[in-house]
């Protein structure tokens, strides 16, 4: 049986960043995910903000890793060719009471060591973001806050890991962690085989890292340990057309409540405007449904911050689930749970990685490596480690001259497939042959922006199906939206003789 040094369960942004951090060393590492693509969990559905770090309670892991993660974003994103904009964030106070809470946030930020914070008055806030509510009496500006492409970062980190020798297995579900006495021996996996059968298999590994988001507690229990109980908390969102981007240039938070950072209005790195999230405790870890009430709450909340938002510019709704620790949990402090449980050897747990998990991800990865080293894993650097990955040209980002040169090199870049987002056939072809190929429509979407514009795939879907089938060498009947049974078309129309 093949044996790994480390198996990382979960290829979200946390697992993928960990895999990349491990790829620096001479290790045999396997990154596993049950979904058809990396980043299909919470990583694909969040607010995408690289928080400055004033929210978390001083002294917590959250506070420390948020700050450290934030500081690494420029380097990590430039190495990986990921879109990131340190545009600054605002917490807007709309009443005298709220104004007081800004002082508290500011003080907490100072304690956490957050640089670049200033308190501004309502007039200054409106000067910077004229669409903000006239009720604004002041704001906390955090210059180091930013916005990022969260799935782009996850894909890039996983690709970098793969290019440096990490093995990746998608559509591979870990059904349990295998123990031999005190020692963790590996994992048991279930894999969908061609033809629809399920194959069950054991994989041996010296270390198992749980980076499974909402399912971290279930996996921990499978190893015979308790002490963590994750309860999902849903956040729903609206995405608005790019034309709304004239209204919001940065990130506008309301003053936070005890439960959440509140419903915000933010520009996205792709130039849309996003509203959300609300915060609703639910029980089903797969329940990503948007509800009428939830969406109404989001719109109400967003309008309080930016009263001029136009409902007619809505192009999409979605929901994401926070991996919140249940209040009854044994060690619940509201903090990230990143530790090597003392009861066993060979297990590392990343639990309750809720916000600011994205902002902290680069620092979480570094911390995990430190913990593994401290627990006895020998880490020898590989001389050939490359922290970058090849970045495919994005037609819509190029100058006319560069576009001309690109088409001259590959005429498929002259064929526009997605007209709202100006995505070319060349970009689709490249995504189908990337280090982690796009094998589903959603995977293609996250890599190229195809179908994410105002027509939401209306024009491109038939063309994308044709190109993907050709490039991947499969029948259109086998193409899915997001793996499993999510087929795009069901059969051929009646054959014509």
């Amino acid at each position, binding site marked *: 049986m093949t044996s790994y040094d480390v198996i990382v369960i979960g290829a979200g942004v946390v697992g993928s960043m960990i895999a990349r951090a491990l790829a620096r060393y001479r290790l045999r590492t396997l990154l596993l995910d049950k979904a058809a693509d990396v980043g299909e969990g919470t990583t694909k559905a969040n607010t995408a903000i690289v928080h400055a770090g004033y929210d978390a309670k001083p002294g917590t892991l959250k506070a420390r890793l948020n700050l450290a993660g934030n500081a690494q974003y420029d380097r990590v994103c430039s190495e990986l060719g990921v879109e990131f904009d340190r545009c600054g964030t605002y917490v807007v106070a709309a009443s005298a009471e709220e104004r007081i809470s800004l002082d508290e946030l500011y003080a907490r930020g100072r304690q956490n060591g957050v640089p670049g914070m200033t308190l501004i008055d309502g007039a200054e806030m409106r000067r910077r973001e004229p669409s903000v509510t006239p009720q604004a009496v002041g704001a906390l500006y955090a210059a180091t806050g930013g916005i990022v492409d969260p799935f782009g970062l996850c894909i890039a980190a996983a690709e970098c890991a793969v290019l440096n020798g990490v093995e990746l297995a998608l559509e591979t579900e870990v059904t349990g962690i295998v123990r031999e006495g005190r020692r963790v021996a590996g994992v048991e996996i279930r894999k969908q085989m061609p033809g629809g059968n399920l194959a069950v298999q054991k994989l041996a590994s010296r270390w198992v890292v749980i980076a499974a988001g909402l399912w971290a507690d279930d996996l921990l229990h499978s190893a015979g340990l308790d002490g963590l109980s994750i309860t999902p908390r849903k956040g729903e969102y*609206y*995405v608005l057309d790019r034309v709304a981007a004239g209204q919001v240039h940065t990130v506008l938070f309301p003053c936070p409540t005890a439960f959440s950072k509140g419903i915000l209005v933010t520009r996205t790195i792709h130039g849309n405007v996003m509203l959300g999230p609300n915060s609703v405790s639910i029980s089903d870890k*797969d329940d*990503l*449904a*948007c*509800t*009428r009430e*939830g*969406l109404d709450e989001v719109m109400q909340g967003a309008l309080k911050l930016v009263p001029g938002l136009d409902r*007619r510019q*809505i*192009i*999409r*709704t*979605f929901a994401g689930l926070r991996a919140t620790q249940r209040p009854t949990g044994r060690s619940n402090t509201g903090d990230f749970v990143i530790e090597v449980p003392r009861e066993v050897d060979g297990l590392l747990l990343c639990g309750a990685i809720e916000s600011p998990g994205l902002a902290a991800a680069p620092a979480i990865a570094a911390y995990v490596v430190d913990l593994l080293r401290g627990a006895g894993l020998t880490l020898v650097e590989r001389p050939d480690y490359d922290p970058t990955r090849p970045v495919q040209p994005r037609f819509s980002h190029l100058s*006319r*001259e560069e*576009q*001309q040169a690109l*088409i*001259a090199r590959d*005429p*498929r*870049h*002259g*064929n*526009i497939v997605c*007209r709202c987002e*100006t995505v070319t*056939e060349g970009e689709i072809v490249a995504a189908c042959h990337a280090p982690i190929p796009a094998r589903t*429509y959603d995977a293609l979407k996250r890599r190229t922006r195809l179908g994410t514009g*105002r*027509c*939401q*795939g*209306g*024009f491109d*879907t*038939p063309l994308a*199906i*044709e190109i993907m089938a050709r490039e991947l060498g499969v029948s*259109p*009947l086998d193409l*899915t*939206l*997001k*793996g*499993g*049974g*999510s*087929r*795009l*078309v*069901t*059969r*051929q*129309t*009646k054959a014509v003789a």
Partner: protein
Amino acid sequence: MRNLRCDVLVIGSGPAGLAAAYQARECGARDVLVIERNAELGGILPQCIHNGFGVRVFQSDLTGPEYVARWARMAAEAGVRTLTRTMVLAIESSPDGARRRVIATSGADGMLAIEPTALVLAMGCRERPRGALAIPGLRPAGVYTAGTAQRLVNIEGYMPGERHVILGSGDIGMIMARRLTLEGARVEAMCEILPYVSGLRRNLVQCVMDYDIPLHLSTTVIDVAGRERVESVTIAQVDAAWRPIAGTERVLPCDTLLLSVGLIPENELSRAAGVMIDPVTGGPVVDQAGATSVPGVYAAGNVVHVYDLVDDVTASALRAGRSAAGCACCTLLAESCELPVTAGENVHHVVPQRVRLPLVPEEGATLELRVRQPVEKAVRVRLSADGDVLLNKRLRYVRPSEMIGLALQPEWNERLTSAGGLQVDVEEA
């Protein structure tokens, strides 16, 4: 980047683009070029394999591909040049606003910069997607707009699903209800949030009723279930404010939800070119010849407002093509004044939004309007200029789905020159 010049450049090769280009040549423009993003000419029509096209224009009942093939041939014979698989990315204006440069890309030709004397916008429209309606529920595979499904079935040869629920009763949705049934799939229901069907009566009879497809009016989809592929949708009746009525929910098992909930004129290019857009139609503000607010830029077809009959699209495009040629040849009447047109009682919108005077007999001019509410009994459509009634047209009924045309008469010129504006009202007779 290759630089080109032409007299008239047409963006889009649907029935509007082809007719405008044909007419521009017929009216003397020397160099007329049509740019089309798709691999084939014809806009939306190659996928409309049903009949019902051209009854007025050609006095024969053609399919979409047949109708557009005729126009493609006529345009080619008239000397129109076409570039397919070429997409317009931007319309740039010179600093003084007088000239325009159209930037396009194609695999075969690379980047193109084209400077036309006159430009005709004929980009058609797109379908309103699920996100725009914010339908609650999960987001599995199997949710398509009806036009996307139509392309999958009629062009690509693949079925979007086996058991369909159609939300919205637009024409494409009704046509797809029949098409899918003929392909051996099931259509479990068609739901419409309005108390009446939003597409043509003809399609309701021939595509829905003839196939016994259950139609639920004042009903909408309030939930979509299924993690991977659609497994069911929940429908519910709505009150007058479109709020779901508790207790009327019903779960319909299905694997596909098709949306036929409206078309939106494609005017991102027009907006960026500074063309004034009517917030009601979503299309450019035009005069009776399709002239937009930007000199030298014309518009025709679905890019202006959504048509239900291709014959009307063609007529609007012939007018725009004629005036684009006039602009290109500098024969337009320089001195003219404009009358604003107001949508009055029970009128949703009127196109053109302004009428240029004087009315010229060979130019032809038609007011195209849609009502807000259906009236299933005799009505009077009244056209007036400052209260002075020009026309009183009796109709047996009016429906939002059926566009109403009012021809403007050149003999009104004198009465109109002193008027401040035109207004159309629709009232019970």
